[in-house]
């Protein structure tokens, strides 16, 4: 067990300003157990009265060793780890990982699976934004939004449970397609959600968007210019809230995103309110995409028939010797991916979710690294928070939408 180390002020002199060393400003710990740090983030705050002079994030309280652990598992079995990274965007992580494998080994995905992937990724975006909206409104003391958002999130969780048997950690998207076809009830369940969702988004907005208290707490707070946002490597709503038009679904479409008609919401203010408005508008766009995907959902297989990489269907195993051998080989030793490295990025609810995957010809990833949007977005926090009050800091942390599992992995 590691011990808590005593740190003296001199030991932190490289982090804080001279004024703190002289005792003019106050150093204050926030977290790791704090209700509004959205998990186990620790912030070392340097305060001048109530104004934040500097905010230094201390991360790693949720470090799980996911990347290293994945190297010890075969490609298929490592996938369960990706769910647990950004746990609000489980399907999105699966999607990024599977796209990387498919690129490395050259697998093609049937049309129905592509559409299902888009549909589920957008459902997940909706669920993730609902959690974000609920919790960040809760930080600003708007309790009812939290209750409303989780009500609709339960509907999405029910859909996930319907198709995969699990609410959160579905691992439903698999290399070469999806796990199995969706049940017949799936369409009704999604249509039901689509029917109520636009009205419900109006409902959330009616509580916040024009609420003078909410405007006071968010407008002009945590500002970042477009140039700074790009330089700090922000992605997702944090970048689009500053007026930079960048969305991987438009710039490097994957899984057939180019076939869908949707807009990328933009705001130019770059403050907490802009990020809020962008995300709420994104929820509406997600509803549009889900609608289109559901309408066009083609019939056909949901998994590639390349049995070197994709397990054959259960029904074939009893009758075909070859299928049995494939199945046995895949689940005991896995498949050998060629040597080489690939980088794939998808647009997660939080920004650019990248996967760097390097194979060495064996059945296990040689190196896998994730570019997680929360990590990159979090590093801009000191810039965003500087000069604002401690109470604003809560709103700012909420607005960059971090998930600590995504930051620390």
């Amino acid at each position, binding site marked *: *067990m*590691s*011990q*808590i180390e005593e740190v003296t002020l001199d030991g932190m002199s490289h982090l804080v300003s001279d004024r703190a060393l002289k005792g003019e400003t106050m150093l204050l710990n926030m977290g*790791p*157990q*704090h*209700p509004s740090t959205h*998990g*186990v983030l620790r912030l070392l705050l340097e305060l001048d009265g109530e104004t934040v002079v500097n905010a230094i994030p201390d991360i*790693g*309280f*949720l*470090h*799980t*060793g*996911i990347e*290293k*652990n994945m190297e010890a598992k075969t490609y298929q079995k490592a996938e*369960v*780890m990706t769910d*647990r990274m950004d*746990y*609000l965007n489980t399907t999105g992580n699966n999607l990024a990982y599977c796209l990387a494998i498919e690129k490395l080994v050259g697998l093609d995905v049937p049309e129905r699976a592509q559409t299902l992937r888009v549909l589920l990724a957008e459902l997940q975006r909706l669920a993730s934004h609902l*959690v974000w909206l*609920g*919790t960040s409104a809760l930080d600003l003391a708007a309790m009812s939004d*939290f*209750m*409303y958002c*989780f*009500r609709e*999130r*339960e509907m999405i*969780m029910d859909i996930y449970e319907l198709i995969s048997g699990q*609410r*959160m*950690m579905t691992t439903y998207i698999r290399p070469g397609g999806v796990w199995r076809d969706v049940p017949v009830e799936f369409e009704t369940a999604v249509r039901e959600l689509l029917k109520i969702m636009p009205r419900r988004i109006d409902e959330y907005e009616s509580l916040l968007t024009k609420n003078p208290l909410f405007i006071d707490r968010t407008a002009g707070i945590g500002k970042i210019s477009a140039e700074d946002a790009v330089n700090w490597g922000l992605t997702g709503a944090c970048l689009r809230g500053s007026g930079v038009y960048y969305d991987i679904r438009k710039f490097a479409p994957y899984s057939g995103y180019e076939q869908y008609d949707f807009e990328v919401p933009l705001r130019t203010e770059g403050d907490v309110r802009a990020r809020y408005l962008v995300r709420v508008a994104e929820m509406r766009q997600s509803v549009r995409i889900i609608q289109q995907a559901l309408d066009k959902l083609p019939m056909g297989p949901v998994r590639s028939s390349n049995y070197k990489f994709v397990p054959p269907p259960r029904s074939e195993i009893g009758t075909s010797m070859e299928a049995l051998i494939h199945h046995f080989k895949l689940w005991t030793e896995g498949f050998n991916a060629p040597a080489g490295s690939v980088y794939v990025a998808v647009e997660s609810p939080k920004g650019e979710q990248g996967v760097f995957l390097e194979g060495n010809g064996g059945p296990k990833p040689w190196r896998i690294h994730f570019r997680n949007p929360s990590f990159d977005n979090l590093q801009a926090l000191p810039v965003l928070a500087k000069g604002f009050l401690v109470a604003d800091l809560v709103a700012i942390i909420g607005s960059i939408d971090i998930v*600590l*599992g995504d930051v*620390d992995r």
Partner: protein
Amino acid sequence: MGLEQKLGNMGVVTTRLEDLVNWSRTNAMWPMLFGLACCAIEMMSAQAANYDMSRFGMELMRASPRQSDLMIVAGRVSRKMAPVLRRLYDQMPDPKWVISMGDCASCGGVFNNYAVVQGVDEVVPVDVYVAGCPPRPEALIHGVITLHEKVRRERMKDWA
């Protein structure tokens, strides 16, 4: 049937002090607002409208360990977090209970590696383990009720 019938016409209820104390402890058990990882999202769902843990007297999550009786360890505990967790536990006033929520907190779950503590019972004493990755909100509520039953069986001579 309301309380009136039970009271009889004297308006007096007799019970044992033990039972009364245990009853009041179970019906106002305040959990600490403390989430670690994915399981914390399910813990939040258990608090929200559909599952509504306030039915069991637990709607009030306290952000300060000094005001709470119950620690729900919701998620994986990393080696860096473990000393913090222990300190939080030490700050809670007696009597206190711990629920280990999820596979990671109970035994390390899928993460058998250098970073994750293989079971939070290495750090704090655990009363109830809830299995699942993540456990459904119902499972957490079941864990809570199991804990309540356990508390109701406590006897005065065992109180330290």
